[in-house]
């Protein structure tokens, strides 16, 4: 039981951040309402999956839908580390892209300002 609680506590932050970023993007009109709602629904499903991980696992086991062993403490740490790494990679990738955009913009603005008009 404790392991499932830990799994939930360790990972719920990602869900909250995911939902928060989408709400922020929607309020700033950076995404369409449809896309924001779809992404938020997906995050809510992930959150529900984390919250009900133990009952879901039991249900799958009782109905012979899974052969996997119950969650170990190592699994909790590994899953959290995996999710954290992936989210960090995405954020860094996105930041590098934004930096690249700003450099391009600087190149563009400077080139236009320094251009010779006939």
């Amino acid at each position: 039981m404790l392991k499932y609680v830990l799994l939930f506590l360790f990972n719920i932050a990602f869900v909250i951040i995911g939902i928060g970023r989408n709400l922020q993007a929607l309020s700033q009109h950076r995404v369409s309402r449809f896309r924001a709602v779809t992404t938020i629904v997906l995050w809510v499903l992930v959150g529900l999956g984390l919250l009900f991980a133990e009952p879901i696992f039991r249900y799958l086991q009782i109905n012979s839908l899974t052969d996997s062993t119950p969650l170990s403490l190592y699994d909790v740490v590994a899953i959290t580390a995996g999710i954290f790494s992936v989210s960090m990679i995405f954020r860094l990738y996105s930041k590098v892209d934004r930096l690249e955009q700003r450099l391009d913009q600087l190149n563009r603005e400077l080139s236009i300002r320094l251009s010779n008009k006939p």
Partner: protein
Amino acid sequence: MKQRRVAILIPAWNEGTVIGEVITSTLATTGIETHDMIVVDDGSTDNTADVAEAAGVTVIRHILNSGGAGGPTTTGLAYAKAEGYQYVVTMDADGQHAPADVKKLIDAITEDKYDLIIGSRLIDSTGMLWYRVIGNKGLSFITKVLFGIGVTDSQSGLRALNRKALEQINLKSTGYEFCSEMLWRAKQQNLRVEEIPAQAIYTDYSIAKGQSNWNGFNIVKNLVKRKMLELIDA
């Protein structure tokens, strides 16, 4: 009366050998004033910018090379927008577009029926190299799969945009994938897109200088990256 200022935009990189002829023949055929032709030199190591300047056209010299036609095209479009142009026609600097097709595009866009018009080399691909036909058809198919845009020639550099498209299309790509991205942004903004047939002129120079099909992989990779970043950045 509505102001109809048309600019011709030529993104160029190391095209010193041919750009003079491209500028002269295009100006002669279209009747566009020299200062309404914008050449954006993407950090060439040859005399591209000097030749263009000698021809009397507007020259913007990129300080850094952007690694593809997207960077200089975006710069040229930003310049045209700031200068208040109503229409912009973009064309390649290697002489693969017939000046008569540029004129055709100017006539079509100034009719105000469409916001973005593509000069498609694949509506009638007669005279086009077979491997270029395959490469371009493949990229058009991928553009359709990724963005749901069905055009025959998604990679054509011969395009015409009106003021609405200039204001609403915000390109992020600096490489050759900008062609597909422009169509994607146009779709996002519900712009009216049309294609008209255009000829592709191949010379030994343009064949040697042109994009290889292998570069198509880079284009696909960058398009997937752009699509992914859009999802992550939500």
